[in-house]
């Protein structure tokens, strides 16, 4: 079973968690925001092949929300961080991940 590290409870089984969608999406004020921009806020998500910052909730544990960077292909959780913390540099994390993989390949 996949283990997800809750910032409060530590590594816990994945079934205790709920994915709550992409993180760092700020709601614009309706006044002065065009319909297109409002629709984009509501419905458009990045849906990348690679790393994505997401909101997760440890619903069957401490019940707290946190953010996590996950690889959408391998399901690897690269890092977790508290709500309110700035968004990590996904490009840098992806480069670290690629370097790590290359080092493992070289060591094999």
């Amino acid at each position, binding site marked *: 079973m996949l283990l997800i590290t809750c910032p*409060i*409870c530590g590594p816990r*089984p994945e*079934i*205790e968690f709920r994915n709550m969608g992409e993180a760092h999406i700020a709601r614009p004020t309706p006044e002065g925001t065009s319909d297109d921009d409002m629709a984009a806020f509501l419905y458009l998500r990045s849906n990348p092949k690679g790393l994505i910052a997401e909101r997760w909730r440890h619903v*069957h544990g*401490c*019940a*707290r929300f946190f953010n996590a960077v996950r690889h959408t292909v391998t399901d690897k959780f690269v890092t977790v961080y508290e709500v309110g913390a700035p968004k990590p540099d996904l490009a840098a994390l992806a480069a670290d991940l690629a370097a790590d993989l290359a080092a493992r390949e070289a060591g094999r």
Partner: protein
Amino acid sequence: MTPEIKRVGAFEGLPAFPATSRVKAVPTGPLARILFRGSPAAAASVSAVFGAPLSTVPMRAGEAGGRAALWLGPDEWLLIGRDGEGEAILAAIAGAVAEPHSAVDVGHRNTGLVLSGARAVDVLNAGCPLDLHPSAFPIGMCTRTLLGKAEIVLWRQAADRFHIEGWRSFAPYLLGFLAEAAREYA
């Protein structure tokens, strides 16, 4: 004429748990249970009047004088006392905490049982994916988790004794699940 009201335990009328020398499950009977939510400062005020300390260390239970305070989240604790103490605990909390908080009596929503025996860990692990080795889940640790499809609060009271809190409507499922898992250790 006042209609007679009879209190029926959640486990009454259910098939008995097949107790063996290696594992048994015993319902706790009625208990007072308060779900308290508030800041750590408010929790410290509650600790003073409740008796058992409200832990600020994650996943730790405080126990004293027949009462227990189980950490559920950074601002959430489950307070357990003897049956009938609920009103008094609520009043004590209301008097001790000035800042905004929430204290709700969930004594009739929850029900509890104690699973004990040398095989208690194996029976639990049939439906609970947590690592229950003493190094990862020591005595005094408590957490919300899952047993099969039902949410429970699991509290290790001794090396081979666990207190399981679940919602009363899940009682037949919880007892049935544990009984099925225990068949292996008959």
